[in-house]
């Protein structure tokens, strides 16, 4: 009896669902879907990365300028001119000095900060939020803030130093009442490094934090049971395990510092006497402000092979240390 009831039910079942599931919809054609979903980003990347990139390559070997936009092939002339210019070499050296020192500071401070941020303490969310703020602020805006902080006369940093007796007559930092942060070559470079570090440490800390969170808790517990104290756990267990993400953070820090011109442009405009000039800002001054587009493109492109080599080297080392 029960059997017949079931049979009846299956015959009465609406055949509509069968028919609709037989039709092939767009949702079934994965090949078409792939293209559909990829299209926006492909258009975006081609329009805003690929075209400008190849345009820059074209310009670098031409004589295009703001006054004469007509394209004439000029071979390696732009590079010969750049190499003959001492400012180019100063910029190149500054770029490396600023990038390398920033990179080291960012990695060291970012690692320390991330270890603090993963710890469990009261008000952790407020601290995390505050720490991330520098990175969420546009570079140019925060650079303007730093410009005020480092002002030659009204710098609050100088004021604090004067108050605690580090600055002024008969003090550690000399008889003058101001540091002139952006007015002396060494201090100006240090200031640029300080601002770059300040804005990149939060990013590095968050990346490394993700690496720390990915380490299973029981590894640390096993090390504790095995008799390892804090420093041994830190340097023999935790640090080797976060090396891959530290390398990624390093790569980001290096690329962001290497390619940034906003900090230098806002703080020092490359001065005093080009002592903080970097390739990115020099390319901007030559190409946009000076109107020599071909020359600017040539200088800007000089960054490309260096960055590419650095990225490949770092990503390779990541693969080597990746163990989990």
């Amino acid at each position, binding site marked *: 009896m029960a059997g017949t009831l079931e049979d009846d039910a299956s015959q009465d079942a609406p055949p509509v669902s069968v028919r609709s599931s037989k039709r092939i919809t767009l949702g079934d054609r994965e090949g078409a879907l792939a293209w559909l979903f990829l299209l926006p980003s492909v258009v975006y990347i081609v329009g805003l990365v690929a075209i400008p990139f190849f345009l820059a390559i074209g310009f670098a070997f031409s004589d295009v300028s703001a006054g004469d936009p007509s394209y004439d092939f000029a071979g390696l002339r732009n590079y010969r001119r750049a190499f003959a210019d001492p400012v180019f070499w100063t910029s190149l050296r500054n770029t490396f000095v600023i990038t390398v020192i920033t990179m080291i500071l960012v990695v060291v401070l970012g690692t320390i900060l991330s270890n603090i941020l993963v710890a469990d303490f009261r008000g952790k969310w407020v601290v995390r939020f505050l720490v991330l703020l520098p990175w969420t602020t546009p570079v140019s805006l925060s650079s303007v803030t730093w410009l005020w902080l480092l002002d030659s006369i009204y710098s609050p940093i100088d004021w604090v130093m004067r108050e605690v007796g580090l600055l002024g007559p008969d003090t550690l930092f000399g008889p003058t009442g101001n540091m002139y942060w952006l007015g002396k070559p060494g201090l100006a470079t240090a200031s640029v490094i300080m601002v770059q570090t300040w804005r990149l440490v939060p990013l590095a800390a968050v990346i490394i934090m993700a690496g720390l969170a990915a380490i299973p808790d029981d590894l640390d517990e*096993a090390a504790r049971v*095995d008799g390892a104290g804090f420093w041994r756990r830190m340097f023999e267990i935790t640090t080797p*395990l976060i090396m891959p993400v530290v390398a990624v953070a390093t790569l980001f820090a290096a690329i962001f510092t290497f390619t940034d011109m906003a900090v230098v442009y806002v703080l020092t405009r490359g001065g005093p006497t080009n002592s903080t000039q970097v390739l990115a800002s020099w390319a901007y001054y030559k190409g946009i402000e000076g109107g020599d587009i071909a020359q600017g493109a040539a200088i800007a492109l000089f960054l490309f092979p260096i960055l590419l080599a650095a990225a490949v080297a770092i990503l390779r080392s990541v693969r080597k240390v990746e163990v989990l």
Partner: protein
Amino acid sequence: MAVVEVRDLHKVYDGAQQAALGKINLATEEGEYLVLVGPSGCGKTTLLRTIAGLEQPTAGEVLIGGEVVNGLPPRARQIAMVFQSYALYPHKTVFGNIEFPLKASRIDRPERERKVRWAAELLGLTRLLDRRPRQLSGGERQRVALARALVRDPAVFLLDEPLSNLDAKLRTSARDELKRFQAEIGTTTVYVTHDQTEAMGLGDRIAVLSDGAVRQIGSPSEVYDHPADTFVATFIGSPPMNLVPSGDRLVGFRPEHLLPEEDVPGSDRVTVPFAVDRMENLSGDRHIYGTVTGIGEPTRVIARLPTTVTTPITVGESHAFAVAADRLRFFDTDPDSGRRAEPVRLEA
């Protein structure tokens, strides 16, 4: 002197409503294999971690070698632990993993090398010393974890479900290896598992835990034959003990003791009509499902007939089964206690 002892151990996790551990009292004997067994969430792992010093008790004391170790960090407790995941250091070789505790206790290099080789030899890891954990099989990883625990010369081994990551076939042989290994080393071992077969097979004594309390401690046969309450009776043994409500008592008997009447020797037995409704053949044994009447309320029970019992059983018919009187167990019907109760005379 007990190697490990816990006194009135109480643990409530921050923000938890219920205590993870009630008031636990437990002591191991020198060189014994004590197995903590219970369903997930019963507090067995919490207890082990509290002994290890990875968790701090809310109240009560942990003693190792007769000394209260409550305030001491794990490294000062003379313990070694094998984690469920093995927690091998993925960036270190097998050698580096086994060597790590020795480095941490600042033992010099030649001595470290000697001990690592000794442990590797003992556990058959010598040819794997240069490998990294991810290049090892589950069983090899487990042995590396054991070797790492071994080189510390601990007063006690704490093992947290070390077999649960192995496949069923490997588990049986690994269980045998573990037992032989401990017999050879002779170190007191506290072993946590949720698998009652593992507990019965490995433990010198087993402690059955449920809801943060120890329900019973005893040798495997004691716990199996004389369960302290209905929880132990149904948790230990597969299939579990049959429980039949009868007046103010629950009458319990193991499936292998419910047999066709002619297979129960002796005159002191309780005969019950058994209406059979299903039968399974499992590794030689016949598992028979059906309803018993006569000793109490009609209740669905399982009978396990060994191969030696050849009495023909027909599904759908009622057969005369019996349980020897000395195999009957009695429990309180109160579901909160279910404790062992005085036996009563069953009319059947």
